[in-house]
Structure formats: structure tokens, C-alpha cells
């Protein structure tokens, strides 16, 4: 079997906050979603200085 570079086949670490319990991997995914959304909204889009001329 091809081995992965990072072995994720070990028991997950969990994050506890009040009654929330989430594995670190899921927390990473959800936090990344929020970060990417914020970046998508804030990061300037290339070529946005153009004013709609034909190329």
C-alpha cells in the first residue's frame, strides 16, 4: 500500500468548548472555510481597475 506522507490514521485530537466537542481536523476545515470566505471578499480581484472596455 502507498503510504501517505502524513499519517492521519491515529486517534483524533479533540477540541472542547463548553458542550462543543469537535475533532481538530473538522475545526481546521470549518475555520478554513471562514478564513477563505473572508479572504474571497476582501482580497482585491485582478483587473478590477478596468472599466469594461473591450479587449
Amino acid at each position: 500500500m502507498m503510504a501517505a506522507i502524513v499519517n492521519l490514521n491515529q486517534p483524533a485530537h479533540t477540541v472542547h468548548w463548553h458542550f462543543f466537542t469537535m475533532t481538530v481536523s473538522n475545526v481546521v476545515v470549518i475555520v478554513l472555510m471562514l478564513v477563505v470566505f473572508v479572504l474571497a471578499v476582501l482580497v482585491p480581484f485582478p483587473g478590477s481597475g478596468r472599466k469594461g472596455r473591450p479587449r
Partner: protein
Amino acid sequence: MAALPPEKLLPDAQPSYMASWIYVFGVLSLVSLVLIIASGSILTLKGPGWWHFTSVGHFFNSIHLWSVELFFFFLVIHLWGKYWMAAWRGGRARVWMTGAVAFIVAVPCALTGYVSQQNFDAQWISTQAKDGLNAAGVGAFFNVTNFGQMYSYHVLLLPLAVVALVAAHILLVRKHGIVPPFELAPRASAAGLETEGRPVAREDHGSGNGARHGSGTESHPVAESGSPRPGRTT
């Protein structure tokens, strides 16, 4: 189909307000779905047991899993963007609804995949999910512990449903066009009736006007006479 001539299906221009990275998450979700189906198709070539015993099979199973993770990742960001743009405006309610139903149908499509894995994860998920489905009465005809049934749903029925919904969603997007921005009242507006952020009342807005596009000077968009130029209308 008359509403979707080739210039609308594959436009060569986009509205100039589409100047944000948030707009790429629809196509990112779509290509993730393409990869899910492509990798899934390879997995079907050698049957459901193959990927447990060969490196190549395991590789394509990994491609399939990460395509799914990325699909939902991009889809959620696409959904957030479309919500905060209120993208259902201007008669686009069906665009929103087909997208929402596609998301909702994708969830059991993924579930049928998880219970078709033929490993411990499949054993656990199926014996747990059965309780929710049985309680709702769905278990009477959708048995998550029946591998044959779940594999059929996963490989054929639910992907067909997802693809049909996504196709309807995209065709509606092409038909209605990308939702324009909220209109803001100009800062030094002579009208001055509305506060900024609420749409300005414009009684003479005509949908019969041709599309305008910038050429030459940019002080005002140029009015087109006659019918809209092909390829420029949304």
C-alpha cells in the same frame, strides 16, 4: 431552450461588477463535482472491493474522498457569498432554490457513499444512521445496512439527481444572468429621498433597453439602439 442561445450558454463577456474572488466558488464547486464523478467512475470500473487491496485503487479512493471534501468546502463558501448578495433578487428565486435542493440532495448522496465503503466506518455509520431514518419512516424503504441498495443509490440514482439539479441551477443562472449589485443612492443625490443602502426608486427603468457596454469614453455607458447585441445580454 429559445431563452438560451449559444451566446447566453457560453457568454464572452461578464458584467463589470463581477470583480471579487467570491465569484469563483460556483465554478470551483462544479469542477469538484466533475472530479467526484470522474474518480467515482474509475472506482466503479473494478468494483466496490478493489480499492481495499491495491495501491492504485486506494489512490483513486483518496481522490474521490478529497474531491468530496473540497466540493462541500467550496459549495458552502459559494452559498455564503450568494446569501450575502441576496442572489435571489430580480426573479432569481428558482436559481437559489435549485442550488439549495442540490446541496440537500448531495448530503444523502455522500451518506450512501460512506455506507458503501465496506469497512468499519461503513459499519458504524450505517448502524447509527439507521435509527434516524427508521424513526422518520424512511427506513421502511431506504435501508442503509443493505449494501446492494446503498451502492445502487450512490453510483446511479443520487448522482443523477445531483447532476440534474446542478444542471438546472446552471441553466437558470445562464438564463437570468448574475444578480446585479444592490443599488446605492449617490452620495450627493438630488433625489436624496432614500438612505444609502436602500435601493433608489427608478420608475423609468426599462427592461427593453439594450445592454450597454463601455467603449470609447467612460463618462456614461453608451445607449444601444435596436435589439441587444448578441453575446452582450444577460
